[in-house]
């Protein structure tokens, strides 16, 4: 009597199943994080309250998702990543590699990203794309402006927090980085307001994960600044890719490490090109409408 054993591919590979289980666990930890809960509560309140009466520009309301989902999300994922340091001697002997665990941590950024998408829908409900508060941008560029200000920072902030948590040991790093990034955006916005025609200032303004594209003009109307909102989204997504790769680089060995470093180089070049295109595209001079 003979028996034939047929080996076929399993329905789900063990690596993917482990990754999914880890990602779900980390996601559960994120949604229970007090800082993230505070951020979501505030965004929900701000969207529920709606815009202030007499609002003449979109910039009064659109930084909130970037600050709360992106900035506070960064602090939350930084803590999430750092909280595993104490248990590293135990977790380190499991058959799961550090890059796999980092990838699971990166997957939690889907949650703030989803909230960002919901915030964008709510924002467009209150400020439709035909609203003059957007300035002189075309309808598609208006969508790009708010997507780059609301959705992508909500994705990039948490990813940056994971990368920071993997490489920096100082426990206050996330809050310091949050305040430094906030200062940088405030500074370049003020400088851009006083030098709206300058190309180098436009590059500096776009050299951030968040930027303003329009400002209420003292003479009336809204002044749209230099820069292409679509290419700016490309630059932001390249920064997100860099954050993920930098996070994954920690603990990577052998061929994986070589691949990550090569991908980092490609992402870095792409980011640079997209930043130049973002600064060179769009309006070449500020336009008030």
């Amino acid at each position, binding site marked *: 009597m003979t028996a034939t054993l047929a080996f076929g591919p399993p329905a789900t590979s063990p690596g993917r199943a482990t990754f999914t289980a880890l990602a779900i666990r980390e996601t559960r930890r994120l949604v229970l994080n007090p*800082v993230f809960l*505070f951020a979501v509560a*505030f965004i929900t309140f701000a969207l529920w309250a709606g815009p*202030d009466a007499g609002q003449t520009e979109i910039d009064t309301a659109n930084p*909130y998702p970037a*600050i709360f989902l992106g900035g506070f999300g960064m*602090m939350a994922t930084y803590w999430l990543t750092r909280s595993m340091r104490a248990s590293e001697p135990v977790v380190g002997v499991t058959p799961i590699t550090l890059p796999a665990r980092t990838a699971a941590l990166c997957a939690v950024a889907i949650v703030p990203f989803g909230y960002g998408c919901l915030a964008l829908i709510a924002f467009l409900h209150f400020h439709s794309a035909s609203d003059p508060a957007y300035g002189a941008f075309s309808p598609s560029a208006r969508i790009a402006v708010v997507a780059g200000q609301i959705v992508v920072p909500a994705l990039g902030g948490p990813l940056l927090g994971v990368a920071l948590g993997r490489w920096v040991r*100082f*426990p*206050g790093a*996330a*809050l*310091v980085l*949050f*305040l*430094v990034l*906030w*200062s940088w955006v*405030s*500074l370049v916005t*003020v*400088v851009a*307001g*006083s030098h709206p025609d300058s190309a180098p200032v436009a590059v500096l303004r776009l050299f951030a994960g968040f930027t303003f594209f329009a400002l209420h003009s003292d003479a009336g109307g809204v002044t749209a600044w230099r820069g292409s909102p679509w290419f700016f989204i490309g630059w932001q997504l390249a920064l997100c890719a860099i954050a993920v790769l930098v996070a994954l680089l920690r603990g990577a060995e052998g061929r994986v490490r070589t691949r990550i470093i090569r991908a980092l180089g490609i992402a870095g070049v792409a980011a640079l090109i997209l930043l130049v295109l973002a600064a060179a595209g769009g309006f070449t001079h500020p336009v008030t409408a």
Partner: protein
Amino acid sequence: MTGTVLRAGAWPAVAGISGAAVVVGGFGAAFPAAATMLLPVCFTLLAAAAAFTLDEPASLVVDVTPTGPVRRTQIRAVALLAPLAAGALVLLATAARGLALPWGATGLALAGNVLLGFTAACVARTRTGEPGATTGTAVVLVLVTPGLVPHVARWVRTFPAPGAGGPSSDTVWWTVLAVCAVAIAVSLGGRNLPPWMSTVPISRRRRSYPTVQPP
């Protein structure tokens, strides 16, 4: 004793955050139009730096030594000179650039920010050996809220920006100073904190450890 306690402080954290605050404040001085945005952030960073002054990685050992919490806190308070000096440097640079700020109120805001961070650390130190990261984050969240939430900004101002409406920041900071003085006194006096506070094991009130007797 003083030198030993000071040497064990979280100097890299305090000096690093104070340095970041000087950079941010320096840009505020260099670009006067951005000063009213950057100086509050600079002060917030200094509050975060003050929150790290009481961090004690070896608290399980240090807390059972004969040196009491009052003496240790007094010595560690010397580290507050770093954020205060950094803030003073920024204000001097701002004044040298000719900015017209209400200097008395600005100095009060600086002292209030630093003392708020230190007080939060004092209170949390009764529960944990390294309160810096948690209290620093909490203090930053509290201090940035008026700048972020318009509903709060109508009632609370943490920086005396010239020409801004609403209540004076002096009222806020005198109140904060008074509350901080009481909170520091209570936390150093060894009174139990409210039960809703988290209970990370800390041994300040534990005078002796259980010993295992040999069979």
